């Protein structure tokens, strides 16, 4: 039996995190248990079963301790300094991302340096989300240092406290730091690409293409998103592995055409993948796909065969080490469960179909699309029913038609950006095709949603009532 240790370690590490969310145990104690297990694994290495169990215990308690540690707020954290909602607090900090404007309000994440409340100035750390209304000052961008006054709220379900600055409130840009790092370059490229898409497409088409290509969902009309949830095709509006694959492929191809040697070509392709990951906000699906693509490229460079189980596990482990709370995020769960379902269920479902049908040249693409959609749906329907309270029987047939169209739109979107940069006279032709495909996908989606029995809303049941 060919065992892969990395998937096993990842699962055990995740179990440690899950256990820490339920049990209360001092992280120092769990570190101690991990250390004892390590000693046992090291000293009894000749007794294989005990050593194996001890090694798994090390990983389990490490996951436990690691998650428990993230729950402990440092003394300088804004959550420790400000224990409740505060009216009129002044904060100083740096913009951690590009501001997003929606419904005349600007929002961004601020990395804190200082907080002033009740005439008391305190150095602090941590992040807050800022919601700014009616801002007319100088343009704000990633890396700028600001001083803001507003009302601080701590909504229980949100990750960071929210500072609401009213229209006309105090906002002072202290410094504009000319950062030159990978994230800044990625965000600038994203801005340029967004401008190109908006210039060549209608409002609605531009919103959808920006979501698919750049991960910018703010302009998607709520009814479009709602309609796609009902048809089970909302995942096409999320930047995913397919997009990362296209970017890596395009980068690789351009470098190959430029006759760049093999080794630097692989390195540049990895860099391009990382830039795209940052540009699209490094969400879990993109991060997962980027790590898997990088593993594939490294494997290719080292002339080693890629293994999807290992690369998927490595992606999960890296994400959980960076932020163990991701384990409980629906995006993380759906992203990994869908890939695991496709990898493991698709071959089994394919084996159920007779060889005659499988071999038919005309049926093959539809059959493969159907089986991939079915495998992903079977794996994720439980999660979707629990989190979104919706059951969508129309998902599988809808995905057979909509996913290939969405893939075409994504390719056309990238082609439009490339054409605008290198052959602007061709851009209108690409924009017409893209606009048409978006119109078709919207009409098709509406048709599927309006079919009888397309979706059902489920009653609001608690956790155990689902069993």
């Amino acid at each position, binding site marked *: 039996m060919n065992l892969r240790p990395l998937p096993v370690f990842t699962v055990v590490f995740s179990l440690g995190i899950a256990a820490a969310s339920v049990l209360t145990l001092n992280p120092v104690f769990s570190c101690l248990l991990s250390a004892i297990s390590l000693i046992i694994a090291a000293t009894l290495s000749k007794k294989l079963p005990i050593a194996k169990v001890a090694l798994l215990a090390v990983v389990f308690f490490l996951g436990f301790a690691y998650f428990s540690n993230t729950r402990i707020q440092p003394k300088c954290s804004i959550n420790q300094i400000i224990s409740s909602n505060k009216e009129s607090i002044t904060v100083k900090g740096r913009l951690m991302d590009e501001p997003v404007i929606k419904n005349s309000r600007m929002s961004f994440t601020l990395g804190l340096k200082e907080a002033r409340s009740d005439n008391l100035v305190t150095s602090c750390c941590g992040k807050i989300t800022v919601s700014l209304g009616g801002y007319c000052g100088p343009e704000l961008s990633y890396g700028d240092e600001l001083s803001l006054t507003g009302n601080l709220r701590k909504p229980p379900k949100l990750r960071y406290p929210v500072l609401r600055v009213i229209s006309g409130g105090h906002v002072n840009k202290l410094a504009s730091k000319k950062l030159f790092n990978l994230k800044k370059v990625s965000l600038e490229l994203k801005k340029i690409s967004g401008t190109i898409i908006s210039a060549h497409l209608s409002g609605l088409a531009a919103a959808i293409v920006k979501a698919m290509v750049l991960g910018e969902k703010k302009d998607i009309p709520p009814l479009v998103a709602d309609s796609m949830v009902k048809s089970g095709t909302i995942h096409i509006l999320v930047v995913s592995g397919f997009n990362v694959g296209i970017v890596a492929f395009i980068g690789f*191809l351009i470098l190959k055409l430029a006759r760049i040697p093999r080794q630097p070509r692989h390195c540049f392709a990895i860099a391009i993948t990382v830039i795209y990951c940052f540009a699209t906000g490094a969400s879990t699906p993109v991060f997962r796909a980027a790590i898997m693509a990088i593993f594939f490229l490294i494997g290719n460079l080292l002339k080693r065969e890629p293994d999807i189980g290992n690369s998927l596990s490595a992606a999960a482990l890296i994400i959980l080490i960076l932020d163990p709370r991701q384990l409980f995020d629906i995006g993380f769960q759906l992203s990994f469960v869908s890939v695991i379902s496709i990898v493991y269920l698709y071959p089994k479902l394919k084996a159920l179909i007779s060889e005659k049908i499988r071999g038919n040249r005309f049926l093959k693409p539809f059959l493969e699309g159907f089986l991939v959609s079915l495998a992903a749906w079977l794996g994720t329907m439980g999660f979707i029913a629990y989190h979104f309270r919706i059951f969508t029987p129309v998902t599988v047939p809808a995905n057979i038609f909509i996913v290939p169209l969405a893939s075409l739109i994504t390719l*056309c979107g990238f082609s439009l950006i490339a054409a605008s940069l290198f052959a602007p006279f061709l851009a209108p032709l690409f924009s*017409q095709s893209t606009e048409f495909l978006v*119109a078709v996908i919207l009409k098709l989606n509406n048709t599927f949603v309006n079919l009888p029995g397309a979706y059902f809303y489920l009653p609001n049941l608690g956790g155990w009532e689902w069993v």
Partner: protein
Amino acid sequence: MLGLTQQERQVVVFLAAVALAGLGINISQKLIPPVKKFVCAESNSVKININQASLEDILRTRAVPKKIAGEIIAFRDNNGPYIYLEQLKKIKGIKEARFNKLKEFFFAE
């Protein structure tokens, strides 16, 4: 052909096909104007006509509370169909913020 691999040829064919399709659509729109309705992604295709919206449709958007949703229906019943969406501002309780939210979901026709 031209020293390109099969993959590179497929990319060139794809780009040429997209450009050709775009050209075809552009020409069709100029020669047959009604074609534009089918080839453009219209905002109204994803919004609800306020004159056909039921109380449940309005409530599901969570743009306004139940009382104001009722007022929207009552206004329509008493004064006839909405000609412009801006007429919603005449209803008590619908100011700029609520109107902007309603604009995301409805159109008037």
